């Protein structure tokens, strides 16, 4: 049964009655791209490069960016089920998932639930699981720690890569604040992970690439290695000179690694 209906609009998609902002780009194998702390910019250089290999659909999660959030939409469970509807409404028999950071958590949940429907899975600097002991947080607390430290941990080259709020337009700052509010709603507790997800990662059937920014201080590369270890056959690769957002800091390297993996 298909309940998702796709509008003809280039930048909106209606799924189960929920209007989502979407970015579409490229030609090739179908890829659902799930964004991280911030929604994907249509002008992101990594998108342009990935578009040579893949037909990318990048929805903005409800409550982030310009996607509305239904009032009863409160949890990652809601987003995951929304994207199952979205995927069920797509014409492709199989598709690939790319999940960045918070979107990596969503992608891992979807890959567990959808089995062979997902042929390839890319997790980049993903959150979503608990790895270390109970007194060692795996994920830097972007809400309770100083914003300067969060910025320093997010980027390899803070001076050149971190957004400069003074230079951004009003609507861009409002979007950042909306994104932060949405992330807080969905990810506050337990902080950005599902205690049960690790238990189910071995059931993932998709070929998996776990990509990590070498300088990521939000979730360290060792966390990525643990992620890869839990998913059967998963490869783990490091992108040098990148922090938590390798797709932004090293767009070419990111796109090359992902394209090569998707073509394999």
């Amino acid at each position: 049964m298909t309940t998702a209906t796709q509008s003809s609009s280039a930048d909106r998609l209606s799924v189960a009655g929920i209007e989502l902002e979407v970015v579409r780009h490229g030609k090739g194998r179908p890829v659902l791209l799930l964004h991280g702390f911030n929604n994907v910019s249509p002008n992101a250089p990594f998108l342009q490069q990935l578009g040579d290999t893949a037909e990318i659909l990048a929805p903005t999660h409800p409550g982030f960016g310009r996607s509305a959030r239904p009032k009863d939409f409160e949890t990652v469970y809601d987003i995951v089920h929304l994207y199952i509807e979205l995927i069920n409404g797509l014409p492709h028999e199989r598709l690939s998932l790319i999940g960045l950071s918070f979107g990596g958590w969503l992608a891992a949940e979807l890959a567990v639930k959808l089995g062979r429907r997902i042929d390839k899975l890319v997790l980049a600097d993903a959150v979503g699981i608990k790895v270390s002991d109970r007194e060692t947080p795996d994920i830097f607390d972007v809400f309770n720690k100083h914003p300067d430290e969060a910025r320093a941990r997010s980027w390899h080259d803070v001076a050149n890569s971190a957004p400069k709020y003074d230079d951004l337009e009003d609507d861009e700052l409002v979007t950042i604040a909306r994104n932060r509010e949405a992330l807080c709603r969905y990810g506050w507790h337990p902080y950005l992970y599902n205690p049960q997800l690790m238990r189910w990662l071995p059931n993932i059937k998709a070929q998996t690439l776990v990509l990590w920014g070498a300088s990521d201080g939000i979730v360290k590369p060792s966390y990525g290695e643990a992620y890869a270890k839990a998913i059967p056959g998963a490869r783990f690769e490091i992108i040098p000179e990148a922090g938590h957002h390798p797709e932004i800091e090293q767009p070419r390297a990111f796109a090359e690694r992902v394209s090569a993996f998707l073509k394999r």
Partner: protein
Amino acid sequence: MDAWFQTEVTYPFVPQDVLDAADSVRASLPNKYCDPKIAATLFDESIAEYLLCDELGINVVCTEHHAGINSLLGANPMLLAILASQTRKVQVMSLGTLVTLRPDPVRIAEEYATADVLSRGRLELGFVKSGLTEYASNQANPINNGERYWEAIDLISKALTYQDGPFSWEGKHFTHRHVNIWPRPYQQGLPRMWAATGDASTSADVGRRDIVQILVLRGPEGTKMAFAANRKARREAGMPKPTTDRFAYAALVAVGDTHEEGLRVGAKLLWFLNTSLKSAPQFGPLLPGNAPPEAAPGIYRTKPRPNAGGGGGQLSASANAQLLMNINAEQAMQRGILFCGSPDTVYEQIKKFYDTVGGFDHLAMVGRSGFMTHEETKKSLTLFGKHVLPRMREIKTVTAGFNQPDV
């Protein structure tokens, strides 16, 4: 008009260089800086001050704040129990257990019912929305705080009044399948309820629910706006005009033999604003839910742009805090945050504020803070109780907003 006393049991004894170096004096300042021996003395003194209020006829208020120099009252119900048990005459208010920070409102209802029994029916229930550093200290999601606030109050209210339990509660934020608290409250029906809030939307909720609204250190303009929103919501809901017993104001208050003495002691109370409000941006402006996303341009930029957006309207709690941190005694008196001086001049300041905002029946006095000593506090309370309170009592309950334009 009546009066209430509160002290946050502040802890001003952390070296200034430590406070200067810390980005926040709440939530993240390590507790190695809190000497439990000093804390024990502070509690002894504060309880003695509360018991003095019992003799003077000043009602008592027990507040709650977490993990910082601004207050040692994280475990608010414990002090509440002591006051409920040891006072004999005055009303005892919890203002309040921070209901949105606690996972189970039924436990709060149990604590309240027990305190009401201990006091033999003198308990009043104040609810505070909480905020800022408190979310971090209690791992409470700052998003949805307002929803949790009212749902918790509804569940607590039912738990305190329902006598044919167990009953079940399966709400959006709280679930409990077996609510049946023992003891039930001493009072028949709900104890009088209060809400400490200043924003227009919650003020309207408070009006529609017909509970006492208390504004804390908001000054005349913010207070007038909040009271007006309250009255307007009541009128629109078809409720009768409220009387002044539905409104309250909390200010820093100090009384001396002379105006100068009161001024000197009152200036010490400003420590609460100047020193103990310091908190890092992640516990203030940048905390999700603290301000609507539309206010981001005014918050995220290090310098404002001309004609840029920035929220507008009422100040957010963190913007209000920023303003209070830089205030001096004269400004605080002008802004209606500090009432201090001799009994005569303090009364005049209270009456002036009363007239400016359209009346209120309850003045909550933050009567000790920072380096104000126990002796100074006792003297201030005694002068207030003997020479200010009797004159306040002559002000009778009337229609609220009696001198304000219709809303």
